């Protein structure tokens, strides 16, 4: 095990950085390490002194994880819990939307591009046909009697266009959804500060104390009464 104060600090810091990808965590750690080296070069400070100025590693990591610079104002207990649940709900909805866009949007984009590619290689397998009244539409070599080929020359450019549009829209949606989800995760990860029982707790304790004292007095009286009689 190393005794290097910087490595010990980094190890504690890294362990406390949660709720982020490895790449982001590494980037943060690299920046803190760069700060220490830079500070050492610029001001000639010793590493322990620099680390002291950075603050405890767990606290530094907590500020990265939660972004909670100012303690949130307290509120009514059920509302605080509901707020936390709602935030995780919105985060989950984001995650679902990201998965949906990534699978469906990109899937459609790639499928259209593959279709366009196949159109060059095997045109008869990728032919689009339709019956005269457009009641039946299909793709492939087996078409019903009387069905005719549709958009024969335009099929490939249309497929390429649709593929590109799906990929672009998917990317655009993900570029909006991912940062938005990160913001919600950060909000959801803020520690929930439940209100203490405070005065109510003290009152309850005093009342229960009074009750047990009264009960003990009553038992003593009954016992004395029986002994006397």
């Amino acid at each position, binding site marked *: 095990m190393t005794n290097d104060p910087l490595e010990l600090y980094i190890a504690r810091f890294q362990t406390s950085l949660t709720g982020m990808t490895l790449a982001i965590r590494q980037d943060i750690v690299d920046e803190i390490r760069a700060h220490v080296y*830079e500070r050492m070069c610029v001001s000639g400070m010793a590493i322990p002194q620099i680390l002291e100025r950075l603050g405890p590693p767990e606290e530094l990591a907590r500020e990265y994880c939660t972004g909670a610079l100012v303690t949130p104002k307290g509120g009514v207990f059920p509302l605080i819990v509901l707020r936390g649940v709602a935030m995780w709900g919105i985060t989950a909805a984001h995650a679902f939307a990201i998965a949906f866009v990534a699978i469906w949007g990109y899937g459609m984009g790639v499928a259209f591009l593959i279709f366009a590619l196949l159109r060059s290689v095997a045109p008869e397998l990728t032919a689009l046909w339709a019956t005269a009244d457009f009641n039946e539409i299909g793709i492939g070599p087996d078409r019903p009697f009387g069905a005719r080929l549709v958009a024969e020359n335009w099929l490939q450019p249309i497929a390429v266009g649709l593929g590109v549009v799906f990929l672009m829209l998917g990317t655009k949606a993900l570029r909006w959804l991912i940062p938005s989800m990160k913001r919600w995760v950060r909000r959801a990860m803020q520690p929930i500060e439940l209100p203490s029982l405070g005065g109510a707790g003290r009152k309850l304790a005093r009342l229960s104390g009074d009750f047990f004292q009264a009960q003990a007095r009553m038992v003593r009286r009954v016992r004395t009464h029986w002994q006397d009689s």
Partner: protein
Amino acid sequence: MPDEVKWEVQLRKGCLEMAVLAALAPARSYGLEIIRTLEKHSDLALSEGTVYPILNRLRDDGLVTSSWVESESGHPRKYYSLTRKGYDRAIRMAEVWMQFTAGVDALIEPLLPAPQKRARG
């Protein structure tokens, strides 16, 4: 921590985001340079570690961008620069800050001892 000290820390932290954006307004800068700018031009005496999570959050919010650049000192530096959105936010924050302090100044004026009043006047 006594209540008044806690309040002061929260106050400093609260306006640190605006101060960091203001420090980045003239040109791109890296963590330690931003800290030194804040030390030089403001009274925001906070632990150095406070600035980095703020920069990280500002980047996530699209207010700043960052990139690693090799420096002459031999260590790479992570430079931050304001985005258009960050610049607009900094201006808006500065305007709100000026309005806010002007309002509160008038309110707290009677609390201050005479020499401080003269200094502020």
